[in-house]
């Protein structure tokens, strides 16, 4: 006697098919809107001459980090990218990462707060996060296509799924780590839950939340190559092209571009986070 194979894959497929059938019109519409916003953002950035945008990014990096070194690195790094002819791809990647990160934070931070304050939410959210983080990122790409179609929005969707967990986890951790005595004190002075959150827990958790945001940005960047497989273009698209054509040099150039963008974002965000603390 043999145990029949459990058709887990079939079930999941049926469920997704069902959802595609009934909800895809909505997600497709959302996709169309997002795509046009993204393209607008990209076009606007590309309309400006590259040197101007590089100057703006340099100034921004310098002012936000308050470090000349980081400003200088931004200037040289972006000039190198421009020089390698990767500027349009880089702009596309930055736009994608920015939007994915914003969505991930907009969803992740409130979810993190909710799971810090409610044990029930915590118990539901944490296992979901475990799944999100351990499931190979490629797997998200498959259902992303029927819902959002090939292209950038599907890429953003899978990037958000992949990059959101640290934002949730670290927000939750930051709030839960507020020293017990301080929470007790806020209670002893008659604070409501909301007052406690806004006046004590969020300010105390800000450095930790910023660390989560930083992680989210990094993960989003690391997802751009994978997302290129479903048409995200950008620097990841260049890498993906180079893989298919075995162009070692071009692959590394695009890879270095990603590294430069990653280092700039990481350093700037770290400095901003440290200042909050």
């Amino acid at each position, binding site marked *: 006697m043999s145990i029949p194979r459990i058709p887990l894959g079939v079930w999941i497929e049926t469920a997704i098919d069902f959802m595609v059938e009934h909800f895809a019109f909505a997600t497709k519409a959302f996709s169309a809107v997002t795509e046009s916003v993204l393209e607008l953002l990209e076009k606007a950035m590309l309309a400006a001459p590259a040197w101007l945008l590089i100057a703006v990014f340099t100034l921004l990096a310098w002012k936000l980090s308050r470090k000349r070194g980081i400003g200088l690195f931004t200037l040289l790094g972006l000039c190198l990218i421009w020089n390698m002819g990767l500027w349009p791809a880089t702009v596309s990647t930055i736009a994608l990462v920015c939007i994915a990160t914003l969505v991930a934070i907009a969803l992740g931070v409130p979810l993190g707060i909710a799971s810090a304050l409610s044990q029930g939410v915590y118990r539901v959210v944490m296992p979901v996060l475990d799944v999100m983080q351990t499931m190979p990122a490629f797997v998200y790409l498959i259902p992303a296509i029927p819902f959002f179609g090939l292209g950038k929005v599907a890429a953003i969707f899978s990037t958000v799924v992949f990059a959101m967990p640290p934002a949730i986890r670290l927000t939750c951790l930051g709030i839960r780590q507020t020293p017990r005595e301080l929470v007790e004190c806020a209670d002893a*002075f*008659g604070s409501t839950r909301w007052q406690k959150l806004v006046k004590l827990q969020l300010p105390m958790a800000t450095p930790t939340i910023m660390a989560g945001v930083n992680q989210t940005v990094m993960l989003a960047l690391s997802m751009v190559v994978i997302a290129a497989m479903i048409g995200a273009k950008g620097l990841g698209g260049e890498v993906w092209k180079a893989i298919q054509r075995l162009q070692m040099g071009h692959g590394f150039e695009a890879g270095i571009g990603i590294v430069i963008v990653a280092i700039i974002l990481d350093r700037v965000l770290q400095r901003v986070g440290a200042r909050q603390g």
Partner: protein
Amino acid sequence: MKKIEVKNLSKIFGPHPERAIELLEKGKGKDEIFAETRLSVGVDRAGFDVDEGEIVVVMGLSGSGKSTLVRCINRLIEPTAGQVFVDGVEVTALDAKGLRELRLAKMGMVFQNFALFPHRTVLANAEYGLEIKGMDPAERRDRAMRSLDQVGLAGWEDSLPSQLSGGMQQRVGLARALALDPDILLMDEAFSALDPLIRRDMQDELISLQGKVKKTILFISHDLDEALKLGDRIVLMKDGAIVQVGSPEDILTSPANDYVERFVAEVDITKVLTAESVMKKSETVGFLGHDGPRAALRKMKQHGISTLFVLDAQHRLAGLVASEDCAELIGRGERDLAPIVRTDIPCVAPDTPATDLFLTMSGNSCPLAVVDEGGRLKGVVVKGSLLGAIAERGRTQE
């Protein structure tokens, strides 16, 4: 008037705490209950009350449940059984909103490790309660500044807590509590994290502040010296239960059991004993205008003493006569004691500490008169009785 009343209050930590309450009623101890049910008894049927304007110190070793008891009073910890009343209102029956309002209106709390909000300035910390209350910024700034001034921190309002020393941080904690002008101050080991010199200063300041603000203060401490110094009354706890409630004198001179006795064993007794507690009630005195030298001499002989205190017609202490002077007077055939009364004798108030008595008595052979504000003679301290009282306390400690 009773400001705080605690009735039969218990706190059990762990699931299904009712089981432990039953066992407590059956007279089982904390350890037995833990062995049987894995439940931990925090507070064991505690009952006491605090009068308006009084400082009551809850004292016990760590783990004796004193912090838990005090947190049950403002329900930072939810009591398992029993009742707490503040101004006759049952705190234990309030809903969340009522409780918040009560905390804001009546109870300020000061914490062991200060619990200052590190991201707020000193002023913003002092303002916290007022901010929660919804007071407008100008007014709360004003009140917070006044309360910072009260604790001697004027000029520091824009600093961050991390820039202040421990003693100053706790002043901020105190200012934060005082800014709300609460009737009750709950002070949880408020000075325990400070080093000894600063701690003594803060104690002195609290006492002088209390003279001005007249709060009802419930102070938690594990330090007996602190309890004796601050407390109008002391509540002594062990294993979650109250062992003794009484004035510092009561605790020292008539400890309720071995535990209290061991607790008080380390106290420097001479700091705590006062003239009143070591004096003898003087049964024999002479009366000016009534007793002559012969009568005085007879009284001295009867009691085996060589000097006699004499009182005037209003029963106030007039001075002291010595036996040799009486004999001389008899020899001269005079009858009035007045010329031989020595008026330059040492007198002390009833609350003078025993250490000071030693100083006053050294270099003086005659007994010390203990006199109240009205000039009435309350008792007499002789060297023997002072040493005796101290020796007796020393013996019971061993």
